[in-house]
């Protein structure tokens, strides 16, 4: 099974032949998928959440075995029973957030467990490391401690770590999902350069522009089946979107009727938390959706957290429906403010709990009986109603939210709030990691909530989405508000420039 680590003149990369995967519960995750991953090519793999991308990646990485079908590696049939088998054959995987050891240096992380004997000789490794970095045109101090790096640089460390094993096939699973646009360019460039050295690169991403930018071939998965596959010459974003969504909702319409602005529901004056560089002013009217545009680290999340009281306020005041708001999240929630956090599984939901206990978590006060008695039937009725109204797709309301796809989990987070919140909804990247169909659902939901009279503040890194949902956009840069636009009089390009500090 071991085919050695050095590049050889083997015929082709990985041949995936009619692979199907049926889980013991009966879920058919993949259905007769055939693909050929060629050395020297970047192969884009796209599809909605739940389309089967993750399962396919797990099979290529040896973490799962196909139920039927076969893999051929460099012409030879292979059966990878565990990730180590695939690794030994020359397959490396970089996940969306690959674990790195924060306490170690970059160099130590890159060669961690690389099997270089028992004696650690940094000097040999430094030369090797410099070569690796040169290969993907990236510079970083090998002696820097990883804890001090940005998420994007950590992602590059993960990629370097994969490269240090001299793979012949590298899987990049959503490598750009949580990093800034500038860092994306580095990752994408690295993928291209890798392909140029004869490595087969699989690039999995929700960002279709990135896929079309760097892929030599693209395969589209939908409902576990390969629905389209084409080369770079035939590649258009329209074709990808059509393949991904099928006959579902296609695109998010860009113009919506601006609502007549109501009275101010939220007024923020000179607000600053310890995490914020500068005090911020912000006014949100009833029925208004205010978008916060900014790069990662521009203080968007910190502003939302300060309004919600999740970060302690050090200066300024907040008026909610004309009355001062102070105290922590409990006080804000009581007054009708809701916060949908960026990381839904660690901040928004209790992963082990069922849908129904998550939906009722923030509103047990209203769902309980006298003497704080829990009334499960009432809670479950709300969860069932929420699932129906928001279109949560799950086996039952007893399904743990950990098992839901990104879009469905996010709908559960919304379900926590929409039956109780009446004043202000603070949304931090509500569509991150959500497939195209789910995004459209969420954006329509946000508009519907605004139409109900809530004031909404939304952070979205995808400026196209931000412009399609917001009435007004506020630009933040380095912790302070640098500008404001009505969303129909600003373009994505202008917004990108403004968020990037250009005027």
């Amino acid at each position: 099974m071991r085919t050695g680590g050095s590049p050889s003149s083997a015929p082709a990369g990985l041949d995936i032949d009619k692979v199907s995967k049926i889980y013991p519960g009966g879920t058919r995750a993949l259905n007769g998928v055939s693909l050929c991953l060629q050395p020297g090519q970047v192969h884009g793999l796209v599809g909605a959440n739940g389309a089967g991308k993750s399962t396919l990646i797990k099979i290529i990485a040896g973490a799962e075995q196909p139920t039927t079908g076969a893999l051929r590696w460099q012409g030879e049939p292979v059966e990878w029973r565990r990730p180590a088998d695939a690794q030994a054959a020359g397959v490396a995987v970089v996940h969306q957030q690959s674990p790195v050891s924060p306490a170690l240096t970059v160099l130590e992380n890159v060669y961690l467990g690389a099997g270089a004997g028992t004696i650690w000789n940094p000097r040999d490794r430094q030369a090797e490391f410099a070569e690796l970095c040169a290969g993907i045109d990236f510079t970083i101090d090998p002696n820097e401690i990883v804890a001090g790096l940005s998420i994007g640089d950590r992602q590059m460390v993960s990629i370097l770590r994969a490269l240090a094993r001299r793979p012949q096939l590298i899987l990049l699973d959503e490598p750009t999902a949580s990093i800034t646009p500038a860092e994306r360019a580095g990752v994408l460039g690295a993928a291209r350069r890798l392909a140029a050295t004869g490595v087969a690169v699989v690039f999995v991403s929700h960002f279709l522009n990135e896929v079309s930018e760097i892929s030599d071939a693209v395969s589209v998965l939908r409902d576990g089946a390969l629905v389209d596959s084409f080369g770079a010459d035939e590649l258009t974003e329209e074709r990808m979107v059509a393949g991904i969504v099928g006959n579902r909702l296609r695109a998010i319409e860009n113009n919506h009727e601006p609502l007549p602005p109501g009275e101010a529901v939220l007024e923020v004056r000179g607000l600053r938390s310890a995490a914020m560089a500068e005090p911020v002013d912000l006014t949100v009217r009833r029925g208004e959706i205010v978008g916060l545009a900014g790069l990662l680290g521009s203080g968007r999340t910190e502003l939302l957290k300060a309004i919600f009281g999740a970060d302690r306020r050090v200066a300024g005041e907040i008026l909610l429906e004309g009355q001062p708001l102070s105290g922590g999240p409990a006080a804000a929630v009581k007054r009708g403010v809701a916060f949908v956090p960026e990381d839904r599984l660690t901040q928004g939901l209790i992963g082990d709990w069922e849908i129904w206990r998550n939906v009722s978590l923030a509103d047990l006060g209203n769902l309980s009986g006298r003497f704080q008695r829990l009334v499960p039937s009432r809670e479950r009725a709300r969860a069932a109603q929420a699932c129906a109204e928001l279109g949560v797709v799950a086996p039952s309301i007893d399904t743990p939210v950990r098992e839901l796809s990104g879009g469905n989990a996010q709908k559960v987070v919304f379900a926590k709030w929409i039956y109780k919140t009446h004043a202000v909804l603070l949304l931090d990247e509500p569509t991150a990691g959500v497939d195209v169909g789910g995004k459209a659902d969420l954006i329509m939901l946000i508009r519907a909530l605004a139409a109900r009279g809530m004031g909404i503040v939304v952070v979205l890194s995808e400026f196209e989405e931000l412009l399609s949902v917001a009435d007004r956009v506020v630009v933040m840069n380095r912790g302070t508000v640098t500008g404001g636009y009505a969303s129909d009089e600003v373009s994505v390009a202008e917004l990108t420039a403004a968020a990037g500090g250009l005027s």
Partner: protein
Amino acid sequence: MTVAASKLGSKPRGGSAPAPPEMSLRGRLRPALAGLRPQRAGVVYALVLLVLVLVIATTAKHLPAYLSSVNVSNILSQSAPDAILAVFMTVVLISGNFDLSVASVAALAAALALKTIDTIGTAPAIILALAVGVAVGAINAVLVQKIGVNAFIVTLGSMTAVRGIVLIALNGESVTANSRALVALDSTVYKVPQLVAVLAGVLLLVLAGIRLRRLNEENAPPLDGFFLALIACAALLVVIAVISPALLSQPLPVWLMIWVTVGVAAALRFLVPGRNLYAVGSNAEAARLSGINVDRYKMMPFVLTGLASAGVGLLYAGRFNSVDPNGLTGTELTVIAAAILGGTSLFGGAGHVAKSVLGTVVLFTLSNGFNMLNLGSNYQYVVQGAVLIAASAVYTIAAKAPARRAGNDGSVGGTAPSDVTADERAGTVHPEVSGS
């Protein structure tokens, strides 16, 4: 599955219609039977197995009947103080914290009560002891939650420091009191009439019946292990009342143990603060951002545990009418072991107080058995330790097994408090695209 479930995905994107609601009794009992799995009911099996072994061993050696009411009462009254501590230790563990100071606090309360009871009177002495317990609990709570020091370190420190205060207060000698009030506290026997016990058993069965009927209502939660526990308790009550009515006479600590367990278990299961406690222990950040006062739920368990520890100290003082400076040393570890035997997670968010009480009973049954069989108490620690490790291993392995069958990639931890397990879910997965 249920009517509620069939409403789900009313906006499905190409999904098929969910299965029709299941109405058979067997189908309804299925989720309840999940409560019989080793990772859920392990401590019950351990107790049954242990008692069985001891019954056989004592019979073979022609010793007095192991399950005689005298011996069972012995085990119960020996277990009671530690079991009460185990209840509150479980609450602390569910909240995601840890308390090593319980035994020292109990010893301090005992010492203070015995030292002062003859001079300031019974009630003031008891109040003083309880107040000191609350104070130590509050100090632990503030240091852990407000200052942010690790709970293990804080309570290791308070365990040591409070023990030091005991040594200072007692000046290295044991203390006794003339007052018999505390002795009465420990030894007064209360009897429940047979008829009352039978009626209580019938009442529990009626409650179980109501629960079964309510399954017809829309949105009724599925049955779980609690339903079986209800029936088991009912059966136990009736059997005891009929076969061994002598067991219905127990000293106050045993009744306290039972009432505290029932009360705390009910609060955790049926009240909003109970749900919130599990939420805070499972994911404190998600709980905080949901508007739950996390500080309160992290701090209250320490204070309650301080109070309960002091109360247990009073029972201890009454049992011997004296306390020596090293009294109760090591009890905190027994109590934590009991909670772990009961399946409580050290990572928070999961645990059941009744199972921790059973865990305590397992430990005391073990030592009682060693005494009965005259096996030498030196070996009993080896066995206790082995049982603890074996129990944890069984919980861990059993928790992983169904996850693997369901095709999850092993990410299901051993701590899930949810009442539906992975393989049941797998049975209901419908062929929907957004499932992964």
